[in-house]
């Protein structure tokens, strides 16, 4: 948090540095970019354009790809599973962005502003670490743990429900088209909620306490201060959290692979898993590549919109 960028500060230091820097041999700095650039071109740029090419071919992965132009894309837009997978992306955004950000904001405010001031500092940081714990687990490990908890026959949840006499509540959580998506969403909320808590708590630390003291003297209650000071002050972090989580939600793969494999009846399928299915089990590389390209375009559009909105709000506040 000590590294927050303050554009005005930077603008004043830049000219001095430029003047002081010796101008001779400026070109040699390029050399330091060579290893990174070569790797970058080999692993990102070339594969990306290869994928773009594949998306316009019919290719089972062996033999020669056959050029078919935009056929994969027209086929995609008529494919119900494709649209379903994007509807599920919206559900993932709710579970990975909307709910965690709102809950995380309140938790961070309560931990930092309320509990942190009334109890030993270790109470707040201990709770923060606990909320964050699911975030550090490999998703496959979290998935296999939840897969067992939610198993219809031997899973802990249903065994507990049956022991409590709630036999009718013991559902096939991940195996039923009606419950699979909400269940996956709950698991994702569990995974995600700690991330905004950590970021927002750090953000709160850099807010000037005098603002709160002044508001308090003016008789503003906790909620008023939260709305008038906390929310506007931590706006930059809110942008970052919502942007990174939205991208993560659009790209989500591991939890789907481990928990449901997109099933039942595609009710939990998402674009990245749908692409994977076409690449490997179905050997429809061209079609998979087209799905991946559409997903890429959406991710880029979302990122650009976020950055535009962020820049606009910073201009408005005259930062």
């Amino acid at each position: 948090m000590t590294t927050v960028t303050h554009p005005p500060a930077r603008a004043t230091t830049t000219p001095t540095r430029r003047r002081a820097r010796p101008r001779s041999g400026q070109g040699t700095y390029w050399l330091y970019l060579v290893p990174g650039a070569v790797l970058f071109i080999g692993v990102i740029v070339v594969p990306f354009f290869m994928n773009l090419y594949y998306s316009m071919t019919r290719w089972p992965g062996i033999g020669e790809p056959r050029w078919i132009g935009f056929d994969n894309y027209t086929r995609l837009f008529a494919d119900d599973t494709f649209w379903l997978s994007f509807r599920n992306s919206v559900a993932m955004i709710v579970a990975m962005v909307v709910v965690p950000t709102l809950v995380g904001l309140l938790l961070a405010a309560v931990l930092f502003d309320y509990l942190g001031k009334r109890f030993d500092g270790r109470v707040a940081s201990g709770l923060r670490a606990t909320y964050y714990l699911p975030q550090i687990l490999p998703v496959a490990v979290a998935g296999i743990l939840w897969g067992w908890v939610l198993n219809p026959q031997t899973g802990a949840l249903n065994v507990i429900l049956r022991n409590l006499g709630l036999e009718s509540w013991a559902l096939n959580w991940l195996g039923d088209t009606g419950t699979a998506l909400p269940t996956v969403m709950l698991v994702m909320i569990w995974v995600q909620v700690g991330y905004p808590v950590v970021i927002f708590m750090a953000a709160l630390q850099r807010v000037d306490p005098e603002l709160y003291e002044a508001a308090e003297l003016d008789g503003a209650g906790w909620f008023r201060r939260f709305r008038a000071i906390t929310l506007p002050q931590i706006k930059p972090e809110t942008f970052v959290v919502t942007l990174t989580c939205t991208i993560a939600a659009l790209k989500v793969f591991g939890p789907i692979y481990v928990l449901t494999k997109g099933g039942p009846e595609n009710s939990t399928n998402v674009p990245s898993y749908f692409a994977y299915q076409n690449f490997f089990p179905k050997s429809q590389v061209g079609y998979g590549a087209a799905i991946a390209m559409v997903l890429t375009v959406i991710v880029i559009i979302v990122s650009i919109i976020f950055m535009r909105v962020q820049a606009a709000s910073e201009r408005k506040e005259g930062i």
Partner: protein
Amino acid sequence: MSTDLAVADRVGPARGGRTGGATAPHERLRRGPGRWLVLTAAVLLAVAMMVPFAIMLLNAFKSPTDYSTNGPLSLPTSLYTDGLVNFWNRVDYPGKLVNSIVISGSVAFLATVVSLLNAYALGIGRIKGRLWIVMLFLLANMLPQEALIYPLYYLAKQTGLYNTQLSVIIIFTVIQSAFGTYLLASVFSTFPPSVLEAAALDGASRWQVLWRVVFPISRPTLAVLVIFFFIWTWNEFFIPLVMLIDNATQTIPVAIASLQGDRLMDAPTINAGSLISLLPAVIFFLIFQRTLTRGITAGAVK
């Protein structure tokens, strides 16, 4: 959640009415029963989040018969370690652990070096078009891995790198260093110029400035990157799943996912397996908690 807020809101005005906010605020705040209610709510939520871990721990040392007769909530009747042994042997846990360490360790080191070199050129060298280059790196970091995976899979097969740890190491070195470059370049753009001038006056070359001046000063940031890259790579799933099909090369996440739907896996084995699979991540987190928190937040505001 709504209860937390309601309580907090009720307590708020009660305090707001008092004057003299500067005099011993902590003494003042440490009174009142409301704080215990909020604490209880926060702790209850934390406990609820820990329930999956708690029942995992409870069932990792139960025998299958114990589990089927007494259910998941009872204490184990005896200490049963066969689940642990089964899992350990079935997935060759030590082998997978070594694979994960080799891959994540190499990526953490290499990606940090690449990030440092890139950021030196972009942040300190301020070469032309640096904004575009940084944007390009950032874009690559946001790119869905699905848009790269098939070509990478195909290229790896062509070059004989398929199913080798080297393929995964190279790929993640690039992906992680894309983020590292972005972060470090903006840190370096505020590097104190007087330090660089002094080094230049002493006749230091670019290479010497990098290793004798920039590197030592930025060591704390680099340490954060190393830890981050290590954990991110450790937890990666998609690319290792595609690239590492062989038992001898797989990482822990891929190995445990491949056990899924294995009918031989009884509840204690699943639990014991989950337990020892998440231990490395938890231990790492406990050791580096402070650095990580600092790093997440540094990344957030860049």
